[in-house]
């Protein structure tokens, strides 16, 4: 089992930054060795030997239908079916990644499932590459070299998280990244603990957390990345969710329950049902949204700390 010993929750900031910049599609091998369903395991064994690889995707056209691994070959040699076809003995339930996913996914999957490689599909579901621990380590080393060069040249600007604390109000912010579900929720968790520390009414804490989490998830699911800014005062919390694109084409639709542009994968996680923005609006006392195609979206939500002004939602 190969795992990549990087702590995606609390590793060094510089390392995490460069991991977040990379997508699975940036590091995968595109030079694919594939086999047809009727190829013999013996031929696939030769292919593995010649190319120095340990897994061969089995494809019909561009569609992935299985994977022949070195373990399948060893079993075939043992069991005496090395001359039979790939489709009879290949691994059929294969965990795949998408080229647009952040590299953090590949690292998490390698560590979680213990497989050595994951086929990568493009937006249309066609096989476009394969990613192994070796690919990831190579890409990380290249990026780390660049990063160290930058640091040495003194060009890397230190960016401490802006945090202002006056006697009664506190402001802080968190960046979000497209499809980074691994750290989604950090910003909202920080808001929740700040409100808890202040002894704000639990029902208000909850409304503020829900509003924040919905807006944070929206940035993760739909935007090219953005920032969650919070200003917690003595009697209200102001949440500003700002992203850098792509912008919402039809605001009215986006605020309608059930309308969503999320893909299948997001839906399989239980999100992207078109309830996010309506729920954030319902949970806040004031809500405004501005969006421009190509520029981005900014949502400002205000939650009053007085428990009396519950806007509708059952708490």
């Amino acid at each position, binding site marked *: 089992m190969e795992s990549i010993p990087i702590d995606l929750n609390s590793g060094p900031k510089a390392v995490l930054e460069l991991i977040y910049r990379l997508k699975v599609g940036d590091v995968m091998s595109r030079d694919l060795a594939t086999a047809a369903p009727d190829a013999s395991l013996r031929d696939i064994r030769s292919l593995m030997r010649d190319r120095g690889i340990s897994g061969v995707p089995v494809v019909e056209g561009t569609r992935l239908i299985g994977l022949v691994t070195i373990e399948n070959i060893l079993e075939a040699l043992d069991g005496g079916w090395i001359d039979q076809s790939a489709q009879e003995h290949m691994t059929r339930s294969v965990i795949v990644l998408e080229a647009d996913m952040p590299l953090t996914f590949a690292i998490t999957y390698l560590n979680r499932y213990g497989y050595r490689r994951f086929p990568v599909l493009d937006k249309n579901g066609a096989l476009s590459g394969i990613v192994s621990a070796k690919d990831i380590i190579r890409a990380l080393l290249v990026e780390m070299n660049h990063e160290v060069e930058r640091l040495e040249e003194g060009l890397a600007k230190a960016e401490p998280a802006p945090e202002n604390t006056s006697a009664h109000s506190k402001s802080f912010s968190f960046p979000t990244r497209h499809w980074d579900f691994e750290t989604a*929720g950090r910003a909202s968790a920080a808001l*929740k603990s700040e409100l808890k520390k202040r002894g704000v009414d639990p029902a208000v804490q909850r409304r503020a957390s829900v509003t924040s989490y919905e807006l944070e998830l929206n940035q993760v699911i739909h935007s090219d990345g953005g920032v969650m800014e919070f200003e917690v005062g003595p009697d209200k919390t102001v949440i500003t969710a700002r992203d850098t694109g792509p912008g919402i084409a039809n605001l009215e639709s986006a605020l309608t329950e059930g309308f969503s542009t999320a893909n299948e994968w997001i839906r399989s996680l*239980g999100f992207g049902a*078109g309830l996010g923005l309506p729920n954030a609006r319902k949970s806040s006392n004031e809500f405004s949204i501005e969006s421009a195609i190509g520029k981005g979206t900014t949502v400002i939500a205000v939650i009053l700390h007085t428990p009396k002004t519950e806007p509708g939602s059952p708490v």
Partner: protein
Amino acid sequence: MNISELPRVLTLTPVQEAFDDRPIAGAYTSDLLSDVMARASADYVLITIQAHRNTVAVASMLNLAAIIICNDRPIPDDMVEAAREERIALHVSGQTQFQVSGILYAALGSKG
């Protein structure tokens, strides 16, 4: 009924048991986390098959009492860790959402 009494009324395996015991206010059954965010209330039990750490994040935002993962879905380690950090009870059951909901509905006197 308290969170600690869940294993008594249901057939389930506790996965994460570091939590602050308190009365259960009700339950909500859904695999759509966006829907859970909109409708589940504080101190509710969430009955679902969504076994990943984002489920814990949702539960934490809502101050839910416990999560029950149905159909013996495998629970990833990072989900267990997140539940421990957030002090949310996490159980796995071989039963379906329908069965778990039915039993809990009767036990809670149809709350939620």
